[in-house]
């Protein structure tokens, strides 16, 4: 077994090495050394039971070269928003429009002293073969006047290892959209976003995974919250990509609020895995989590949400819910909500449901003259609207709702 695993790992390392620019930084060296101790995720690991990244060894990735003259306008959710553009993991300053506080947006320089690896195979790979990333710093007391969209576009069979650091300082407020797009079926985006919400900061992040082709993406976001901060993250997986999302939130202050909303609509043979972890370390904070899945064809969805309430985190309120509709007999969902509570005065709940479309509701709509396809669309829209109704950003809300409406315009595919 060891030899097989080693082979897969060697293959992956070789592929990443060949697809990355040469670099001899001490940081890369450290990351490569760290990789020696890590296994390629496999199905015997509890966190990777249903999601296998070994396909990486089968794809043919090339060394990225800079792609110019790309029209990015189709990827702008709203042309008036600030936007930062990454093409195949490389930052395109020319295409980007920065806010006035731009002096605080700088390319990330990874330093040896920062240990970003976190025992995670992909973030360590990211560090070892780092392509680019931005340091986005919202200074204290600043309220960003417009949302900021960070666009990641893959055009070819390249591997992009992107690493962003977002810091929202004391009393600052920002809204950030992270969108991912791919024109190549053979692209791999490995994206690591570190977020810090300082005291009384508010950050709303929208993660919109909109791959137009069947590429693949590993996405790791961690957020550390200090007291009175509000962090909201909405994850909408609407593209065709293979996706693994790891979202870790550490609530390290009192009176914080963390909101995690998500919807995933895999199709064909698509695989979408959402792993979330909310750690309550301090008392009097709230976390809300709602993820919904609509699955068609032979697609697979994985939801694993864990809420951990440490001993000190008394008076925590934590809610978590996951529900799924399977529109095909061949679609599969693995849903696992987890609560781990060490405090004794908390309010926590979790739940998970998976089912088919409500036949009674379908008949009711049909009996009013609505075709089965339209009835199905109305019911799927209603199901997803439970997630989108919490969105205060109308552009994002409309985008997601229109996606659902268009996708199910002519009913649904088995």
């Amino acid at each position, binding site marked *: 077994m060891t030899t097989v695993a080693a082979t897969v790992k060697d293959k992956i390392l070789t592929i990443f090495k060949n697809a990355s620019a040469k670099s001899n930084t001490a940081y890369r060296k450290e990351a490569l050394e760290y990789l020696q101790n890590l296994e390629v995720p496999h199905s015997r690991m509890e966190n990777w039971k249903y999601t296998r990244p070994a396909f990486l060894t089968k794809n043919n990735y090339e060394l990225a070269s800079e792609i110019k003259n790309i029209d990015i306008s189709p990827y702008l959710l709203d042309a008036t928003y600030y936007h930062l553009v990454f093409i195949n993991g490389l930052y395109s300053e020319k295409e980007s429009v920065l806010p006035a506080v731009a002096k605080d947006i700088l390319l990330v320089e990874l330093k040896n002293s920062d240990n970003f690896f976190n025992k995670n195979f992909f973030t360590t790979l990211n560090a070892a073969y780092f392509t680019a990333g931005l340091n986005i710093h919202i200074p204290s007391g600043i309220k960003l006047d417009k949302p900021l969209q960070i666009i990641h576009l893959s055009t070819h069979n390249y591997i992009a290892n992107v690493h962003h650091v977002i810091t929202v300082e004391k009393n600052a407020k920002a809204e950030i959209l992270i969108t991912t797009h791919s024109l190549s079926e053979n692209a791999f985006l490995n994206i690591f976003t570190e977020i810090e919400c300082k005291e009384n900061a508010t950050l709303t992040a929208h993660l919109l995974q909109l791959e137009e082709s069947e590429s693949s993406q590993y996405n790791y976001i961690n957020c550390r919250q200090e007291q009175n901060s509000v962090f909201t993250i909405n994850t909408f997986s609407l593209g065709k990509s293979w996706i693994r999302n790891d979202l870790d939130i550490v609530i390290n202050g009192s009176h914080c609020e963390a909101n995690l909303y998500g919807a995933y609509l895999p199709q064909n043979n698509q695989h979408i895995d959402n792993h979330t972890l909310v750690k309550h370390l301090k008392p009097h904070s709230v976390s809300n989590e709602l993820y919904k899945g609509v699955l068609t064809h032979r697609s697979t969805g994985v939801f694993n949400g864990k809420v951990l309430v440490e001993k000190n985190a008394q008076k925590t309120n934590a809610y978590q819910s996951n529900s799924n509709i399977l529109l095909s007999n061949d679609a599969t969902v693995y849903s696992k909500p987890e609560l781990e509570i060490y405090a004794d005065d908390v309010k926590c709940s979790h739940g998970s449901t998976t089912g088919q479309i409500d036949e009674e509701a379908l008949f*009711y709509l*049909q*009996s*009013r*003259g*609505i*075709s*089965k396809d339209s009835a199905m669309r*109305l*019911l799927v829209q209603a199901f997803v609207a439970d997630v989108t109704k919490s969105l205060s950003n109308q552009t994002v809300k409309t985008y997601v709702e229109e996606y659902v409406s268009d996708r199910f315009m002519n009913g649904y595919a088995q």
Partner: protein
Amino acid sequence: MLEIRNLKASVEEKEILKGINLKINAGEVHAIMGPNGSGKSTLSSVLAGRDGYEVTEGEVDFLQKNLLELSPEDRAREGLFLAFQYPIEIPGVSNINFLKTALNEIRTYKGLEAISAKDFLALVKEKSQLVELDSKLANRSVNEGFSGGEKKRNEIFQLAMLNPKLAILDETDSGLDIDALRIVANGVNKLRSKDRSFIIITHYQRLLDYIVPDFVHVLYNGKIVKSGTKELALELEEKGYDWIKAETV
């Protein structure tokens, strides 16, 4: 308008309808009464096209079409309406969006253009008054959090909006207090016309005090065992269903 000939239907291989014959002309109101388990709701479900009912014999003609061959939505588009005994709650689908979709799909089927937003809203306003339905309910999710009475009034409101040729009211009176019953019945009476027929399925004579039928049929053990005029309903109320049961044995 509607002609049912020797209709037999089963649910899970158990025969419930054992040969129904019924003819309804335009503008007529027919009441179908009968004890629990006689097949009243099965009849309405079979006519509306609900899944899980197997028609084993017989024919149903609706406006010169073979009703049983049509999908539930096409039956509605042809002019059939079923007011449900237990209206379904559909969270997240607004009453307005739902009705607009329904109305426009019916219009498309008939080769008509979609209704304008302005005309639609005017229609909603007019028809909701018919059953004294609070216009706020129109913006809420379909039947979600509605009281029993509001759900039934919403059924009649939908009936008024969709303007069918034949409306089947399946125990619309069940669960209604006397005030709500009067409101629902008034709404139905205003919708009576020489072109529109009704089938009113009920246990009790009470509703028929308000919606006076042209004909009354008694369904028992899957068959219509007695037909008459509105006096039959009064006789049933007085003598109970045991009288019919005794006669048919």
